[in-house]
């Protein structure tokens, strides 16, 4: 079998780029602005921020525009951009208990302090295509918005800084309180204390940083959570699903799901010698946080406790946060299910890596193939020398302890695959 080497690469790439741009624009009826994507496709923007690992809604929207809506490509763009950014500050630990809640529900309790707040959700909508949206105009939008604002007494004008509402202390105090359900359970002694968190004040250890250190297994919990927090939504959902369906051990209820804005602060930059001044508030980020409750277990002193699972991601991405909580708990259990295998889960949920490596098969692999050709031709020649029969060889005692003779063509094709199969499924024997 013959194959050709690729030449004229430079020109081909240049033309391909132009063609891509052509496809992006040729049927445009009006230019899609970055602002439009950010405001009217916010859930896609949230997903891309979460998978790119960079909270920057404007850039995520830009990436989506550039990538013609491909979320994997957009996440890649964001991640690559992140590589170029210097790290100037590290924020103080954020506390989702301080969240300015948009949505907050629990499947474990009917009623709790703060109550069930459905917030903006499609969970209870009927998935019927709204054909009327084809004719939507800006006037329709304004008219709906105007009426809604009146009904709900929201301020008529958008603040100058989009999505930056009243954030002063008084403003926050005026909001209803939503204490964490997990905290309530802990106070009642029903849930394991948080590890290395608020429960152990003053003994905080430096979290692992997956962007500065390579993961080494077994991974510390902070490393696991980071990998999950920027994992690909689809991959994580599939694995969490497998865990729930019986390929695993995890059957939780959602203790609490909350979506809202959490304030971010940095230590005062001009602090010298650790004088602990007020941290500087720098803004809010939208987060989805899920805490699941798993069947109780016995701890070292024999007490029965609920065990938590934790999920947190950028933006409003509920299925990812729930999946993350399930996977986090699943990785703490031992067993043979794929979702319990730390290396399997953590190494295969990163969108940039999985998409990159799967796509790399499109690169030339002529050398690898040529080398295999050499082997198979040699094997065929060798087989041609002896009787190449079908099926198992005749057993012969005493004389040459021979080699199995399958027909070389079928054989050589299978060899690499079969060997690999055998090796990785071989036992632990040594």
């Amino acid at each position: 079998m013959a194959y050709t080497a690729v030449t004229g690469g430079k020109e081909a790439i240049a033309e391909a780029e132009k063609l891509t741009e052509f496809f992006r624009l040729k049927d445009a009826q009006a230019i899609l602005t970055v602002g439009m994507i950010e405001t009217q496709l916010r859930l896609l923007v949230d997903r891309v921020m979460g998978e790119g690992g960079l909270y920057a809604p404007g850039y995520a929207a830009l990436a989506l525009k550039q990538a013609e809506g491909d979320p994997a490509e957009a996440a890649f763009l964001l991640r690559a951009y992140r590589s170029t950014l210097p790290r100037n500050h590290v924020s103080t630990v954020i506390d989702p208990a301080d969240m300015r809640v948009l949505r907050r529900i629990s499947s474990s309790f009917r009623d709790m302090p703060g109550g069930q707040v459905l917030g903006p959700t499609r969970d209870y909508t009927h998935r019927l295509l709204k054909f009327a949206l084809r004719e939507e105009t800006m006037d329709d939008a304004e008219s709906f918005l105007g009426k809604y604002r009146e009904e709900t007494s929201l301020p008529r004008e958008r603040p100058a800084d989009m999505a930056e509402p009243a954030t002063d202390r008084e403003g926050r105090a005026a909001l209803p309180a939503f204490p964490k359900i997990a905290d309530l359970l802990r106070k009642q002694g029903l849930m394991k204390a948080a590890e290395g968190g608020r429960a152990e004040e003053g003994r905080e250890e430096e979290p692992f940083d997956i962007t500065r250190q390579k993961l080494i297994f077994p991974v510390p919990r902070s490393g696991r959570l980071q990998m999950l927090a920027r994992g690909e939504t689809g991959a994580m959902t599939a694995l969490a699903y497998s865990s729930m369906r019986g390929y695993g051990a995890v059957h939780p209820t959602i203790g609490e799901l909350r979506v809202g804005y959490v304030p971010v602060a940095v230590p005062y930059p001009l602090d010298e010698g650790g004088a602990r001044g007020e941290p500087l508030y720098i803004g809010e980020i939208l987060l989805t946080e899920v805490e699941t409750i798993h069947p109780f277990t016995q701890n070292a002193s024999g007490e029965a406790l609920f065990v938590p699972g934790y999920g947190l991601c950028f933006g409003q991405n509920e299925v990812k946060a729930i999946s993350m909580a399930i996977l986090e708990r699943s990785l703490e259990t031992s067993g043979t299910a794929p979702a319990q295998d730390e290396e399997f889960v953590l190494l295969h949920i990163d969108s940039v890596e999985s998409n990159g490596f799967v796509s790399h098969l499109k690169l030339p692999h002529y050398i690898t193939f040529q080398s295999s050709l050499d082997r198979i031709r040699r094997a065929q020649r060798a087989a041609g020398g002896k009787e190449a029969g079908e099926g198992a060889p005749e057993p012969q005692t005493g004389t040459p302890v021979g080699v199995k003779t399958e027909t070389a063509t079928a054989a050589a094709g299978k060899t690499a695959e079969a060997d690999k199969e055998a090796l990785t499924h071989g036992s632990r024997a040594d």
Partner: protein
Amino acid sequence: MIQVTEHAAERAVPAWTARIRADEKLLEVRGLTKRYGPGCSSCHQPETGEWHSSRCPRCGTIWACRSLDFHLYPGEILGVVGESGSGKSTMVKCLYFDEEATSGEMTLSVCPGDGNLLQASSQRKRYVRNHLMGMVYQNPYLGLRMNFSSSGNVAEKLFAASQFHVGRVRRRAAELLERVEIPLARMDEPPARFSGGMQQRVQISRALANDPPILLLDEVTTGLDLSVQARVLDLIRSIRRELGVAMIVVSHDLGVIRMLADRTMVMRHGAIVEHGLTDQILEDPQHPYTQLLVHSLL
């Protein structure tokens, strides 16, 4: 095509034979303890006394092995009998470094300079596993690579001992497999296709690949048909006769112990409750538990 035409006429005698004296203990174990769990004040000083179970009622810690002391002379077979949960399998796994012992000492006369092997470096432990001890598991899936050739299973041990000549490796593998009565024509078949008895025999040949002075056998005949069991037991005895290998044979079946072991120790709830010559133990058991076992012998 790879020929194996005749067995090696002269094979080098293993190096350890020179260092062995028949009257010196080959293996000595002192205070071997294996604990699962943190332990607590009430269970932390495990006496070798009588317990009702291996589990501490206060903290739930399992004391699988409690301060075991025993030894093995060259060429002798030590039987270890006990019921499930007695700790006998855990003990053997600690000796083979499959499990990490919580405390205790293990020394081999063939490597006196190493001191306590339970605390040796992982490289040293690997050397011991490859050259000085062979292990045969109850479940052949633990001891063999099921989808590799049987000769390959033996060869892997030889590679671990830096034997890198395929012809010589295959000769040795053929010799060993023939010794355990695996037909030469099947030496390249994967053990997955063999019967249970044959799989155990492949395990034995693999364990013997580098001529270790000690063989550990963990319930190797459990689950096999009686006639197959008999064949494997005969094989084990003939190996001891011809090669002078010392063995620790673990079984819950006193009948197997009776057939093979020179000396026996009885384990219960992690401790040794009785030990001595096999004949004496069978004829005149002292400990009530041993009496129970002996009387239950069919």
